[in-house]
């Protein structure tokens, strides 16, 4: 085959090729090869421009000649030392070699850096399809990620709602049962307070439900302010609350918390021109007083202690003691 049609064929079939003479100097280059080496290729020594990384032993043109058909990993000696893939074969002329190059996996950066277009690749080259797929897949992935984020947010909100008392924002019965069970399972010391408002029914009956709701919200705030962030406060009935004080069974501390709650409950509450006065009674049990505490037993004993507090004149807190179980209850 004469030189010119052969060169044209190579330009179209492998636009990123170079031809080398027997001493390794570049005699011609395809259009894309010329585009990525705008400083000029023809006349340069191939091995001075490119370092062959694999196979490692190729340091001379003779060795390159011995590796025809082998997959080569090479890189530009000049910065940014971009890596390329290549293969070398004997060319049409005597002693001539043809090297064909491609970018391999770093194609996207190369396309950006050299501003390559679809016409810089052979018509059969799948690079453009690959770039299409990369964009299409990342757009699809992005849409899926957004969907996942929205679903996650919705799930968190649904869970929040399902575990929250909507009037006060405190935990609901379900959430408290859950928290109590998990405290029992990790066998951490904790105290359970069962609080009941005194005189609250009268507020609802005489001042209306709006005032009643307002009072419950105030109570929730008082309780939350009296405990730490890790403690759990829940409303389990109309005016009944459960508080889980984590990590402490120190009586002095528990006394102080219960006392602070009751004192603040007794401060008159104003709403518009209405004012009401309530109080609270609290029964307390400690997980550490049982050899094997259970939720039912602790809740039952806290209830007993609460009624002992009511019996003793309301507006006070009492720590459960086993002998209270025999005492008569009053409502």
């Amino acid at each position, binding site marked *: 085959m004469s030189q010119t049609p052969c060169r044209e064929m190579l330009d179209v079939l492998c636009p990123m090729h170079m031809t080398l003479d027997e001493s390794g100097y570049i005699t011609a280059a395809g259009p894309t090869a010329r585009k990525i080496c705008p400083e000029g290729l023809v006349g340069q020594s191939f091995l001075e421009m490119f370092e062959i990384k694999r196979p490692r032993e190729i340091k001379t043109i003779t060795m390159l000649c011995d590796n025809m058909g082998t997959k080569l990993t090479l890189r530009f000696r000049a910065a940014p030392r971009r890596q390329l893939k290549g293969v070398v074969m004997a060319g049409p002329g005597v002693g001539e070699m043809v090297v064909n190059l491609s970018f391999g996996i770093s194609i996207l*950066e190369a396309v950006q850096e050299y501003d390559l277009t679809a016409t810089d690749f052979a018509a059969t080259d799948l690079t453009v399809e690959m770039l299409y*797929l990369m964009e299409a897949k990342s*757009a699809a992935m992005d849409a899926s990620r957004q969907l996942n984020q929205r679903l996650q947010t919705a799930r968190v909100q649904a869970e929040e709602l399902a575990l929250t008392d909507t009037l006060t924002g405190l935990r609901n019965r379900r959430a408290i049962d859950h928290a109590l069970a998990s405290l029992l399972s990790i066998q951490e010391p904790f105290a359970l307070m069962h609080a009941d408002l005194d005189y609250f029914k009268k507020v609802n009956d005489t001042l209306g439900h709006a005032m009643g709701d307002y009072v419950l919200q105030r109570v929730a705030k008082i309780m939350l302010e009296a405990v730490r962030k890790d403690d759990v406060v829940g409303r389990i009935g109309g005016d009944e609350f459960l508080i889980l004080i984590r990590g402490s069974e120190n009586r002095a501390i528990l006394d102080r918390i219960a006392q602070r709650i009751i004192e603040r409950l007794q401060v008159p509450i104003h709403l518009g021109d209405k004012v009401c006065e309530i109080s609270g009674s609290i029964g307390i049990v400690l997980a550490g007083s049982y050899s094997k505490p259970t939720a039912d037993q602790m809740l039952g004993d806290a209830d007993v202690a609460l009624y002992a507090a009511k019996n003793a004149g309301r507006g006070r807190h009492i720590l459960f003691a086993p002998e209270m179980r025999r005492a008569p209850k009053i409502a």
Partner: protein
Amino acid sequence: MHGLINRGIQKFVTDSYGTAKWRVVMDRTGLGFTNFEAMLTYDDEVTPKVLAAVCDVLDRPYDDLLEDIGTYLVSHNNLEPLRRLLRFGGVTFVDFLHSLDDLRDRARLAVPDLDLPRIELTEESAERYSLRCYAPIRGWGHSFMGLLRAMADDYGALVYLEHTGFEAGCETLAISLLEPRFSVGRDFNLGARSA
């Protein structure tokens, strides 16, 4: 119908007429929700319902509305990624026209459960083409007309498009290429990262 289609209709209405109008549209459909998720699948009857409601609320004829949606999909900045994916179809507008035969497969490579209507391009001469579009919903041909018109602008080609009819689930468009390089068109860099 795939959520991407419904989401596309939603984006067209919200980007062109505002979210308040879209809420009115969805209220009218009685579907009980406002937002379509691009990556979920919806019942087939949802899309015609939504399109009918959009026509009512915007007071637009059906065919015009679908053509506008097609134009929007290519020309609005918020949908730049889609324009880019279409431009991967070819270097020239004629290449792009020929790539439409593969559009379904290309879409499926990106989103496996996206089932776009089958379309067939016939080259009658170097300047005259016809595009047949087999779609379950009437009007796809009109949205393709809007899309092709916007893509011609994108490539800088001057074309004349005509919707030549609907029969047996197939709509036909006549495409006359008046001037392939009428203007410079819009940029397309192979390696540009779209936002």
